[in-house]
């Protein structure tokens, strides 16, 4: 039986089968396509989701973002953790 995924710094997030990240060229936006669902990503969410490649851990993703955007690590960790947990609960992220 499936269990709820809890996102921690050690989780290695990725998009599960049946979930796709795609650029919608007609509307000039990035979207996640999932069963009966479609999420438009804002630029922050896109930066996070793009890094969920099934290889990098949450901790590594946060380090990368903190470097790229020169922002405090703990703030980023909180935002990233919240977003990824939300996506995991919607079953559009695996870890």
């Amino acid at each position: 039986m499936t269990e709820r995924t809890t996102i921690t710094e050690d989780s290695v997030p990725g998009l599960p089968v049946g979930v796709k990240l795609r650029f919608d060229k007609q509307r000039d936006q990035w979207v996640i396509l999932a069963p009966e669902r479609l999420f438009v990503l804002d630029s922050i969410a896109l930066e996070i989701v793009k890094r969920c490649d099934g290889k990098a851990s949450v901790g590594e993703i946060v380090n990368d973002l903190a470097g790229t955007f020169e922002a405090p690590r703990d703030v980023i960790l909180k935002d990233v953790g919240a977003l990824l947990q939300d996506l995991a609960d919607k079953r559009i992220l695996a870890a």
Partner: protein
Amino acid sequence: MTELNFPLAILAELTHRCPLQCPYCSNPLALEASSAELSTGQWKAVIKEAAELGVLQIHFSGGEPTARRDLEDLVAASAAEGLYTNLITAGVLLSKERLAALAEAGLDHLQLSFQDSEAAGCDRIGNYKGGFEKKLDCARWVKEIGLPLTLNMVVHRQNLEHLEEMLALAEKLEAQRVEIAHVQYYGWAYLNRASLMPTRAQLERATEIVEAARARLKGVMVIDYVVPDYYARRPKSCMGGWGRQFLNISPAGKVLPCHAAESITSLTFDRVTDRSLRDIWENSEAFKAYRGTDWMPEPCRSCERKEIDWGGCRCQAFALTGEAGNVDPACGKSPVHEAMQALATAESAKDETAFHYRTRKAGEAAAEKVPEPLA
């Protein structure tokens, strides 16, 4: 004029053929013959055109879409255009080999219907012996092949007592998602309303069960829940508004603003074989008839919710009042709202269990049996 964006998703009803005969089927009473169906080439042209217009998701439905042998081809054509592909199936015609071929062709997701949580009810409601066992096989194969699975369950008076078991079945089959949808009463369901209408107590219990399951299964299984209109105070925003976000293509290529739109016999629908999709979407009479808010009479015209629910469901307004442009009787401001609720209460108390099953013959004969409008 309302801003016109082409829909993000389309529903492709490949055929009206189906081995099951569900009494609430969303297909029209007048089912299309297989000879009227679009060809493979015509569907491929539609898929290409839709993708160019900005569609991102395509749902293959029916009838039973797997009754079309070219389904793999159409899935592959959609995947080649970058579309997200979803198959909505009753599952009884599928073999494991065929499922694997569909996955190979690029299928992204599958929705499998169950008519009840156990064989007796499931096979009786769909009028298909052995269906339940085949569906279990299908669900197992879907998981073995590694496709994501949603279970679709339509609920009504004759199966709501099993709602907890239905959710347990979905959990056992490891569905990522389950859709619990109360019957919407038009077409076949309207004809069978007296046998399907739930009691208010059943409805309240169902909502409790769904809420409890949602809390318990958070992060494990997503539960989508479609509530019924007959006991509501405000209508649903049907399809996000007529001709605003959604289109449906019938087996014969008619382009519809919702899958039940053909029940509105006062409208005629254009075909993909006669006009371009864009032209139909933007300019066809059927789409323009109830798009936006300009067509609205009172009480909607001066209502603050008119851009929230868009006046509710046109099909329901037509079925219950004989005029598709009336306010949806599910709205408390409709003059026939009370009558509709009284009717639901009365019908839900009946011990009627027999169905008019969905067959072409029954559809042709149904005209005299359809319940009269309220007003």
